[in-house]
């Protein structure tokens, strides 16, 4: 991971942890928001909204099914922001 990617991942993680009210060490790249961290659909939208603000992107809600863990969220944000 480049420093830039690491920074972005860590910022995404912060946002997710803040919304799900959990500690960063509880979350892995692939732990599932819903199944492992008790997220619901409204929290998912909250995460989406915060990411839009933070990274100044627009994320279509049809992407929500992919945004189930940090890895998935990063992929969606990266596409929207043109990081790849």
């Amino acid at each position, binding site marked *: 991971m480049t420093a830039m990617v690491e920074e972005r991942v860590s910022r995404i993680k912060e946002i997710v942890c803040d919304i799900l009210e959990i500690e960063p060490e509880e979350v892995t790249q692939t732990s599932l928001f819903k199944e492992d961290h008790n997220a619901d659909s409204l929290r998912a*939208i909250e995460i989406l*909204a915060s990411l839009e603000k933070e990274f100044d992107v627009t994320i279509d809600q049809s992407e929500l099914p992919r945004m189930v863990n940090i890895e998935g969220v990063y992929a969606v944000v990266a596409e929207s922001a043109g990081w790849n």
Partner: protein
Amino acid sequence: MTETANRVVITGLGVVSSMGLGVDAFLAGLRAGRNTARPITAFDTTGFDHANGCEITGFAARDWIRTLNPDELGRASQFAVAAARMAIDDASLPVERLRGSRSLVTIGTTDGESRDLDSLVETEVGQGPQAMDPVVARRVPAGRLSAAVAREFGLTDTEAVTIPTACSAGNYAIGYGFDAVRGGEVDFALAGGADALCRKTFTGFYRLGTIAPERCQPFDADRKGILTGEGAGVLLLESERSALARGARIYAVVLGYGLSCDADHPVAPNQSSVARCMRLALDNSGVKPEEVDLISAHGTGTKANDVTEAGAIHQVFGDRPPRTVSLKSMIGHSMGAASALASIGCALAITEGFVPPTINHERTDPEIDLDCVPNTAIDADLTVVQNNGLAFGGNNAVTIFGKYPERAA
């Protein structure tokens, strides 16, 4: 109680809607299938990619509110009082007579005076709490929607109660009014719903991805969500005996209603609970499913609502459900007023012998498979009409209306 129960009839209608003020403008709009969507002006919509709504223009509170100071009422309360005055006038019921009778005032709402909360918060953020207007702050409690009606007309032998069951609240209020008149507890009931377009509700629905970019297309394969609206609908209910004794015009009979609570998801509708609600309403009304000529659906135009509601209709009505239309295609989602305005639409459909259309319709979602009377009203002799109201929180209320007098058996 069944043997002595009163027959409950509708003798007055009051309408504040994006179609216009009064029952005539509403009727004309429903017949014409008028689309009332346009860019929202109630608040600054900068930053939203799209912001259409069904707003009311040209409402002058002073034309309708004569006893109270309109400035002391929030917009939703103003709508409620105006619609109540229209209903009383429409019923040719002298206010003195109403004042001397036992009455019920019941207004349903989603947001109460959230529009005032919007502006108070804006003031607080922009200028600090000391700048907040105490007159505006005093307008906020939702109980004032119904209390304002009682105060405006000087009704003291009344129960004034606001029902906060959101998007089905108008039907809850009509159901409550029905019970009160039917059981002889009151002589007259003013029952309906009111809401004012507000930033909070628009933004909330927008964030959920449920605001349509331009127009509301219930049951369409390409539907994109709701448009927020506003208004008030108030029905004057009394017993058949009372109406006949004073020679009042009768629009329709309230046959009954049903309520159900999903006790499930905060926003997703629950098909079996909606079906249960319709069955309860039919049972309460003594009506068989095959006797229903028309359903006025909740029909918000969201993906989730329309497919779930249609599924419930197929569950209750089988392979050949009645025509099912959505007034929200024309007037948007007026929240607490929605099912009250739709009930008024049902009463007018019965009296005037027509089916209001579902406009903005191109192709019915095959998963929905209902005749939604696309785009153009049709003439029809209607005996029994059902009105669905479904709300966030899983509060469902269905009302059933019948032609008066019925055809000879």
